[in-house]
Each structure stands twice: as C-alpha cells, then as structure tokens.
C-alpha cells in the first residue's frame, strides 16, 4: 500500500542511486550523559523560538520522557492508514526556561530570592526534556532503568511528509534525510500530530515547525552528525543500512541485533537500537536470581517488538562465549577499537574545513541566501 | 683560551663579562659560527678591513682547527686594490641593501616565526638588542655561536645536553632548511669574493655541523 503525498511540489531525479543515512545506538554503552542532546542544541537550536527545542534527547526508560508521555500520543501508520495523533503542546514539552539571574545577582534581594526557572504561568516549568531522569520502575533492590537516545528517525515511510498540507516537507533522494522548507511551512503542524515519535517541535516566534535535520550540512561535507561524533560513549554507528560492507547492515540485517523502536508505528524508522542487558536481579534473601531478568521482557517487547528476545539473547550468548575464551565478531564491532569505524564514509574532521560565512553563503545558491 | 664576545647581543645570565673556556671541538664550532656571524652582519668597515688584510682567512682557519668533522675552510680572496666602497657596493648588490635585509632574513614578515625565535633566544639566555633584526641570518648565527659556547661552559651534564639539543632543534627549524636557498639566490648573482667564499662556506659548514650534532644525539 503506497502512501503518496498528493501535494508534492516537484519530482526528484530518480537516476542517481537512492541512499539512506541510518544510525545504530548500542544501549549497552549509553550512560545518559546528555552530551548528544547538548551537542545538537548548541549547534542548531539556540535562536529565538528554539529555546525549548531539543532535536536530540536521551531519556530514562521506563519513563514519560519528552514530550511528556509521548508513547501514548498516537500517530504513525496502522494497517496502511495514517492514524490520528495528538499534537504535543508547549507545556507537554516544557523546558526552554528563563532564569532570574538579574534578580539574584544584582537585584539587592539577598537571601529572599534564589536562582530558579521563571514560571510564566504557562505550565512549562512542570516538565522538561529529561524530567524523570534515573527514576525508572520496579521495586528496590530490583528496580531498573536504561537510557534511550532519540532523534528524528528520517523514516523510510515518513507519515509527516504525508500529513503536510502545504507540501513543505520532503525526503531527500541521495541520503533519505527528511527536511522541511521553512519558507513554505504555514505552521499547520499536522506533521507534529502524525509523527508517532513526537520528534517535531514548533517555533512559536517564527510560526514554523522544526525538527532534526540529520546535520545535513555536515553530511554534505562527509562529517558525521554532531550527536554521533560527540558521543563520549562511542556507541553511535552512522551509515547506509544497504551498504553490505558497513557495520550497520550486519547489525540490522545479518546478526539482527539492532532493532527499530516501536516498529508497530509503521513508519519504518532508520534509527536502530541494540537492546539493553541488565544486572541479575536479587532474590528475597539477596542472593543472585539468575532466572528472572531485571528488565521485564514484556517491557522490552513493548518497545522493540517480539524480535527483541532473540536479539538480546544473541548479545548475551556472545558475551557468555567471550567469557569462555571464544572471539566474537559482533562484540568486536561494538567495542569500536578505532573510533572512526563508527561513521562509515562520514569521517572528515570538521576542524580542518573552511566554513567561513562568506564561502558558505556563496555555495548556498541564490534561493537560500537570506 | 677561547674568549667569547657577541656583536650587539647581550648575555642575560648573571655572570656576564668575557667568559673564558678550555678550547675543544665545541668551542671550535662556536668560533666558526662567530666568524660566519660577523661576516654576514650588516656591511661595516670592520668586515672590509678583515677581508682586505687577509685576517678573514687566518680567523677561519684558526677557528676550524679543532672541528670534530671535515670542513674545507677554502681561501677567501678580495680583488686587488678594491676599496671599502667597492666592498659595500658588492654587498648591497648581492644582499639587496646595506643591512642585507633583502635576502638574509629568515622569517620575512611571519610574526609567529619571529615570536618563536624571540622565545628561543630568551629561554637560553640571549637578549637581542633593539637595533638587531631578530630573524637576520647574522643574529641566528650569533645564537648558534652562543649556545655552542654555553654547552662548553656549562657545569652540569643535564645543562650541556639541553644546550646541545637546542643547537639541533634551532638548526633544524631555522637554518638547515633556509640557508640553501638564501645561498643559491645569492650565488646566482655570481658575487665576487670574499662573498662567494662566505656563502659557500656557510652552506658547507651548516650542513656538516647539523650532520655531526644529529649523529651525536642519535
């Protein structure tokens, strides 16, 4: 069943080879440090109307995450049909806080004030991009949580493109990046309703929607996206899942240990996850319980679909094998002996490029020079 | 005894005054740098007098006597009856102007190189007088003369090693790579003696000295 966007504004040159930039996140190396989300924010969303925007986020699962309770907000494609979704409100994202620096430091009020987010009465100080950090679920001492980095999945079947009435959104042929021409966007925000991952934000100052652009200006110079390149945990593979020589193809299609999040949302996301192991749980008498896994398997299935059990089992058996002295190509890949092996062809060092504003403006082409 | 004197360069260490050291292969290298340093300094009467009364040849041969490597001191000559003005005219013709600033500068206008040279000189205790051009070839040769002498004059083996390494690094970063084309450019103007003699000696000595010092340090 093909979904078309009846209002597409122009056709692509289909002659060149279709590409897709995908990522694999190894959740057994993510430490929830927020470097990826901060790296993205400092690079892309520090201008007016972008204060609350976090195109890259890393939340504690189980948890409500951002926007608050996004997993219950609908959207996506069910039985071949785009399904109604909730458009997340400014309060459900929260964050974007201003602080009373002036008042505390120079207001002459001494101890009667303290530094805190300023409450503008719009309920945005009751939630944020990482509000329920490290809480998780379960009961002490068998509580559990893990971290889940999320960005726009640049889906193979982008229902946001389908939902846009003004044809502002498109998916690039050469690398599959889903973008929005903001000069066409009328702020209708059906894309925000339709996206099941709720990874689209709204700019209330410029009256346009914005979302992760997969660092396309960096991709065009073969530089890896900022979230992947700055991740201190070295767990983000970047590349084309169709490139058989690359690690992503093997992790997703050959070894089948990297899985899409919420596959039932039906948009065929291009961000994959290696499911998280967790420490053995403890029995009543505090002895080790080797049978009952700390993270309930049904919860992992709710996130990654039924194939999560075989994927997790594969990782655990590889680990058992290595501890018995055998080698493991999967684990050697995940160790990432050489950091640049993570990034496929995107290995250029950004520090060596000439990106002077004059040069960059020139190469932009007439249409986009503002 | 090898007496040590610098043209226009101050010694920053406390002891000051003329320093005398037992003559050996290191003072010999220092002495040859002294001869070359004064030869390439901005043109002056003293240079001409040395050349005209054959003092140049004596000075070079004496200095080179204890050198620890092969070095042909050649025979400097000067056209019979040439005056100081002839000498100066040839200097200006070959090196661009009376200061030799045309072709004898190592850094041109690159401030980073000049800042680095200044830090090199000062760290090893050599202050450069206001009138001296920091990156002039003669200043650099004076620095080589100074650090070779300091190696000979240092009490502690660690200090000796540090001065020796400074010689190698300075030669490598500033002289071995730049002197060949300074010399080639000047020689192409087929300069009369003693300039031709000075240029070819400079090239040969720096090359031989660098080979010697790097073999020593391994």
């Amino acid at each position, binding site marked *: 069943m093909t979904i078309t966007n009846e209002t597409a504004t122009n056709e692509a040159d289909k002659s060149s080879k279709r590409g897709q930039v995908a990522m694999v996140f190894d959740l057994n190396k993510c430490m929830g440090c927020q470097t990826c989300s901060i790296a993205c924010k400092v690079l892309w969303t520090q201008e007016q109307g972008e204060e609350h925007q976090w195109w890259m986020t890393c939340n504690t699962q189980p948890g409500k995450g951002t926007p608050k309770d996004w997993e219950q907000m609908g959207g996506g494609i069910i039985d071949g*049909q785009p399904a109604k979704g909730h458009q997340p409100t400014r309060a459900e994202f929260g964050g974007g806080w201003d602080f009373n620096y002036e008042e505390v430091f120079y207001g002459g009020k001494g101890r009667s004030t303290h530094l805190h987010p300023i409450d503008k009465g719009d309920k945005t100080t009751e939630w944020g991009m990482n509000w329920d950090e490290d809480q998780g679920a379960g009961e002490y001492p068998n509580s559990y949580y893990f971290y889940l980095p999320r960005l726009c999945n640049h889906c193979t079947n982008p229902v946001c493109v389908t*939902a846009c*009435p003004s044809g502002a959104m498109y998916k690039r042929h050469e690398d599959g990046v889903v973008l929005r021409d903001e000069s066409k966007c*009328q702020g209708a*925000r059906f894309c925000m309703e339709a996206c099941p991952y709720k990874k689209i934000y709204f700019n209330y100052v410029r009256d346009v929607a914005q979302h992760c652009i997969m660092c396309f200006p960096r991709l065009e110079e073969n530089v890896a996206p900022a979230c992947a390149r700055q991740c201190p945990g070295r767990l983000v593979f970047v590349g084309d899942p169709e490139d058989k020589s690359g690690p992503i193809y093997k992790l997703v299609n050959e070894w089948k240990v990297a899985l899409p999040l919420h596959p039932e949302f039906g948009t065929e996301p291009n961000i994959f996850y290696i499911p998280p192991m967790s420490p053995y749980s403890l029995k009543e008498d505090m002895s080790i319980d080797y049978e009952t896994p700390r993270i309930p398997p049904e919860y992992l299935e709710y996130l990654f679909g039924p194939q999560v059990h075989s994927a997790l089992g594969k990782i655990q058996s590889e680990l058992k094998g290595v501890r018995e002295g055998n080698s493991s190509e999967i684990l050697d890949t995940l160790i990432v002996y050489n950091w640049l092996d993570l990034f496929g062809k995107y290995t250029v060092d950004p520090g060596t490029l000439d990106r002077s504003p004059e040069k960059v403006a020139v190469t932009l082409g007439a249409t986009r020079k503002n | 005894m090898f007496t040590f004197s610098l043209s226009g360069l101050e010694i920053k260490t406390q002891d000051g005054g003329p320093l005398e050291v037992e003559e050996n292969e290191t003072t010999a290298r220092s002495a040859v740098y002294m001869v070359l340093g004064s030869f390439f300094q901005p043109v002056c009467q003293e240079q001409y007098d040395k050349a005209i009364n054959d003092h140049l040849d004596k000075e070079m041969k004496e200095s080179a006597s204890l050198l620890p490597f092969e070095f042909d001191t050649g025979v400097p000559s000067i056209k019979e009856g040439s005056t100081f003005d002839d000498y100066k005219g040839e200097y200006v013709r070959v090196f661009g102007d009376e200061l030799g600033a045309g072709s004898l500068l190592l850094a041109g206008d690159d401030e980073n190189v000049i800042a680095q040279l200044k830090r090199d000189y000062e760290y090893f205790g050599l202050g450069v007088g206001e009138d001296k051009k920091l990156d002039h070839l003669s200043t650099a040769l004076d620095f080589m003369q100074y650090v070779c002498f300091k190696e000979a004059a240092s009490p502690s083996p660690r200090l000796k090693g540090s001065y020796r390494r400074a010689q190698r690094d300075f030669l490598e970063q500033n002289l071995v790579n730049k002197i060949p084309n300074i010399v080639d450019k000047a020689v192409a103007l087929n300069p009369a003696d003693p300039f031709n003699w000075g240029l070819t000696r400079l090239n040969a000595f720096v090359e031989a000295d660098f080979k010697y010092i790097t073999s020593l340090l391994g």
Partner: protein
Amino acid sequence: MELKTVGESPLNPSSSVWSEVSKEVIKLKPVPVDAQPNQYIRNAYKDTPYGNVGEVSLSVAEHDNQVFVRLEWDDSNEPNIEFQDAAGVFFPESGSSESPETIGTKSNPVRLWMWKNRTELQSGLSNSTDLISSGPGVFHPVEGSQSVNAEASLSNGKWSVVISGGKNIVEGSRKLGIVVWDGSNNERAGIGAVSSNWIEI
C-alpha cells in the same frame, strides 16, 4: 453584494466609514473532511468536530484601488497558546465554476488573503499573508507580494477584522469566498469554516 466606494481607507474595523456600508450575514460550514488534502488529515478529522464559526457578517468597500473586506463573528472562548484565531477571504479565477467549500482546487486555485492574530512572541511577523490556495490548507505564499494588509480587534466576544488587497485581484471573477479559523478549537489550514457558495460583489 454591492462593492461601495468610500471616501477614506476603512482598514480600521471600527472606522465610521463602515456604518455607511451594508452588512450581510453569511452562513459558514466546516470544510468537507473528504476534501482535506491528504489521508492523514482525512483520517484524523473525520470524526473531530471543527468549523465552529457558524456565520460571519460581511461588508465590502473599495477605496483607492484597494478592496476592503470586513468580517465580524462571535468568538467567546479562551485563546490557547498553540493556535491563533484567523480569517481569510479568497477570490477564484474568472470563469471557474467550482464551489468555494474547498478553498480552491489543484486545477482551479484561488487567491487567498489571510489574516492571523499574532501573539506577542510573533510581533516580528506580519499579520497578513497573500497566498495561492489549491485546496483546503494547500497554501503557497505568493513570491514577494506585499499588497495584503489587515487590522483586527476583539471586544466583548466579537472579532472584527478588515482585510484589504489590490482591486485587480477581485476584478476577474467579482466573486469572493470566506474562511474563518477558531484558534481555540485548534483550527488551521483546511480545518475551518468556509462559505458554502460564492458571494457576488
């Protein structure tokens, strides 16, 4: 409906000039859901009530080669920070016979002058845009046009808005359609209330 010429620019909705111009109540009805431009919007809004504004009182006037369309409608509910109230008047190309209820079609696009109630945050943006509409919400900005202006005021639960633009646009068909979006009901793009048939002027 007669296009009366007036002595001065009646851009201000409460300008006394309007008292000399006749008013007419125009019935509005929701834009038909199956006309919505894509499967998502059709699926999402087929059983979601929209097009709250049932009727709008219209008056038109002309001055100095500009057409001024004044709209007035009841809007008692609370504005929300997500969507703003908005209204638009649109003109078909001459000779098109399609109904206005889809605010133009792919084959017969209409020229839409839209007013949007700007928030304080959006003080840097214009409150009016000049669009080509080829269907409900299928709006494309007209390159570089500044001929559309608008002024609006909300008092005791009633919006009064004046939208103006070049008379040449109106000359062709001498017909206009009206669309009103109730922001507090999250109305925007094709989700709004539209006049079911053209108003002749």
